[in-house]
């Protein structure tokens, strides 16, 4: 089984576990309003897995029924991987000043939300857009109006949006903010296997830790 070579933890996952991790990361990324931590180990292993499967396919006898089934499986995995990476790119482009700001102000030990390649892409996107706005409009404006703060103009992700989740690991005493002025904040316990509709902000750290799965 392919193993991850990122970081100090040596994780050995079976192919089935790897694909499940990919699907979990994919669903979380799909339903979370903000860009989540990058998962370079999963991506690397899945790519390796796909190459492995494609090599097997080339060696297999033509007309063998298993060939079609394996081919479909490769197609499905490739779709999930592409969809996952596309979802991330869409969020990077949508929130590019905030994503770059968050990465720049990241503390030493904190995990990165951008892979090095995504970081390069985000920087290029920002530079490209800034150059365009300058040349298409801003340089023709009065001197004191030639700057625009993209950090202020581009909307931030809405962390208050509601998400559906399933609880993977039991959590106790999650603090929930009041919705109205009459309510007060209260705590809830999240039972394993239960499903909830809740504001993303409340459970964001639980998504990062893998305690809950967005659905």
């Amino acid at each position, binding site marked *: 089984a392919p193993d991850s070579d990122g970081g100090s933890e040596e994780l050995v996952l079976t192919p089935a576990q790897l694909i499940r991790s990919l699907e979990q990361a994919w669903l979380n990324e799909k339903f979370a309003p903000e860009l989540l931590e990058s998962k370079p180990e999963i*991506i690397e292993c899945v*790519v*390796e897995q*796909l*190459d492995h499967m494609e090599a097997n396919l080339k060696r297999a006898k033509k007309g063998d029924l298993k060939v*079609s089934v394996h*081919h*479909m499986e490769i*197609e*499905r995995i*490739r*779709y999930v*991987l*592409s*969809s996952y*990476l*596309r979802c991330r*790119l869409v969020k990077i*482009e949508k929130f590019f000043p905030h994503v770059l700001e968050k990465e720049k102000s990241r503390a030493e030990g904190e995990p990165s939300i951008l892979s090095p*390649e*995504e970081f*390069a*892409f985000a920087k*290029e*996107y920002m530079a*490209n*857009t800034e*150059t*365009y*706005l300058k*040349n*298409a*409009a*801003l340089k023709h*404006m*009065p001197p004191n*109006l030639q700057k*625009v703060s993209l950090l202020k*103009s581009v909307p931030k992700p809405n962390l208050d949006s509601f998400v559906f989740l399933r609880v993977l690991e039991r959590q106790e005493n999650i603090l929930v903010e009041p919705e109205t002025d009459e309510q007060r904040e209260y705590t809830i316990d999240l039972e394993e296997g239960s499903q909830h509709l809740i504001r993303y902000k409340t459970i964001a750290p639980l998504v990062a830790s893998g305690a809950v799965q967005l659905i």
Partner: protein
Amino acid sequence: AASCRSRSEAKSGRTDLIFLIRFRHCCLLRNQRCVVAYLYDRLLRIRALRWEYGSVLPSAIHFHMSAEEVEWFNRYKKSLATYMRSVGGEEGLDLTQDIKPPKSLYIEVRCLKDYGEFEIDDGTTVLLKKNSQHFLPRWKCEQLIRQGVLEHVLS
């Protein structure tokens, strides 16, 4: 008393001026914001074109783009290509493919325009003539379907 009156007159005059300056500045800021919003919205649509049509834009659309927008588009697709090449092994991973979950390996397609010879994986070629129908591998057809050359026939 006279000096008081003139001082208050002068003060009120300055206040009027400050009001006017502030008002004009707000108008200018709003205009700047409208212009930037309009241009940015166009950029978002141009970005979507890369994902829908591919790296080469139809000339009709190209005609509607400003020189700066064309430059932005070229830089964007270059940046995207670099990123796609960096992910997924030696050849990279074309993220503009596999947009929909795969339902089957092969699909029935009808040719909408004359395209010519089209090579499929095992070396065989197919002649894509207008109105001809073929049973082809799905992943090979995706690009041509998006470009309007082929049409997926749903039985």
